[in-house]
């Protein structure tokens, strides 16, 4: 019994201390991508909080996503998300990734990352400073600590369909809301 608990604890602790990231650019201007890479270099060195950048989605825990989602990358993004194994999290880096930002009105842009996959942490900024990325990871881990793990996993599994739907609805209403504002 206690043994099982201990292992569980250890795993939880490991998950908190060793978040591996994978980076995907869904249509950003490069700004946020560079800052994401930048946060791995000596000045900010994310490795000191245990973060490693991985090449394969199968190895990663956190999908760090930058940029507004373009129509061409949309399916890719879902694929990568599905390739990652549970528990997995998504951080939306940059204003574009949060809402679509400056590209929201473009015809080839579906909006923020959350219009496609569920997002756990939103980090606005254009471009996001590496400090903000560090803080975002910190907040994500904090959130992890608080939330019950099983619940989280379940949510993750269900979130995909639900959230895309709600997001779509939300997007539509947002667009409707916007029109009068633009005219004003």
């Amino acid at each position: 019994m206690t043994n099982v608990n201990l292992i569980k604890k250890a795993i939880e602790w490991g998950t908190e201390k060793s978040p591996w990231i994978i980076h995907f650019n869904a249509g950003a201007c490069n700004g946020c991508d560079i800052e994401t890479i930048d946060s791995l270099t000596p000045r900010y060195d994310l490795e000191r909080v245990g973060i490693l950048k991985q090449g394969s989605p199968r190895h990663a825990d956190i999908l760090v996503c930058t940029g507004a989602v373009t129509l061409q990358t949309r399916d890719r993004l879902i694929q990568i998300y599905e390739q990652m194994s549970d528990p997995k999290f998504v951080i939306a880096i940059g204003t574009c990734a949060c809402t679509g930002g400056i590209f929201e009105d473009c015809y080839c842009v579906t909006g923020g990352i959350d219009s496609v996959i569920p997002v756990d942490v939103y980090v606005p900024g254009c471009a996001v400073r590496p400090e903000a990325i560090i803080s975002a990871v910190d907040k994500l881990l904090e959130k992890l600590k608080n939330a019950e793990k099983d619940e989280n996993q379940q949510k993750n599994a269900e979130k995909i369909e639900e959230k895309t739907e709600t997001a779509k609805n939300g997007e539509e209403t947002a667009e409707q809301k916007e029109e009068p504002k633009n005219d004003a």
Partner: protein
Amino acid sequence: MISFLKMLLAAFIFPGFLFLSVYSLVLDFIDRKLYARMQNRVGPPWYQPVADFFKLIGKKTLIPVEANKMMFRIMPLVSLAAVAAAFLYVPVLGQDAVFSFDGDLIIVLYFLTVPPIAAFLAGWYSRGVYATIGATRILTQLFVYEVPLFISLLAPTLIAGTWSISELTAFYAAHPLYALINLPAAFAALISFQCKLERAPFDTPEAETEIVSGALVEYGGRLLAFFKMAHSCELVLVISLFSAVFLPFMTGYVFADFLLYIVKTLVILLLLTLMRVSMARLKINNVVSFCWKVLAPVALFQVVLNLVIRGSLQI
């Protein structure tokens, strides 16, 4: 009975499996820390390898539909088992290994080829494009470094006249000056080991920017954890083997020997890390030509040299 218990203790606790895994985590950390510090970064905290391991254990394992499930699952364990078994023949404390007999060097060398082959099979049977390329590269590399590695490790036996690692160590411990003769072989072996461990500049099989992470792309979760563990254990094994064969100095006191062992491994690790830090990744064809044109001749030279010395000694 007692000796059997002692053997069991040695095999599983010290200097066996448990020591191996713990020390592999330590070395893994030191390696990463050194690497980071040489790059002017802070680097990971001390518990990082442990955290990584537990994290991976806790993750779900996805097996690609196309992959051969049995092979996919079994390969990490094969790799780990081979390393753990080989470690039993390498002397850690002083000159005594857990098991030893005349010819165990050969056994160890054979065990050493298992992890790359396991990785190759793992890559091959996960049937991804990158994995396949990574797997072929592993095999190519295996063929080219194996020759200089074998030759350079066997060269010292010529003088010592034994094929057992323990006796080899004992011989050179008794005649430390002879150990200096083996310097060219040590050089070749060190580089071959770097090559074997697939660390830069020989990390072609897992070249991140070309083929993602090579043979292990499709791995995740627990299986990846075992592969990673096997890999860092391999690091310990290789370093211990190197220190046993080429740095056989010892004091005769258990505690001091243990300290000496630690110091030796750290020095070798520093060399390996320095090599990793200071060079760009070679292309596979460059690796091939480097191994054939530089390493193999150096190792052969050592063989010739040792034969001559041996001959003159007997006269």
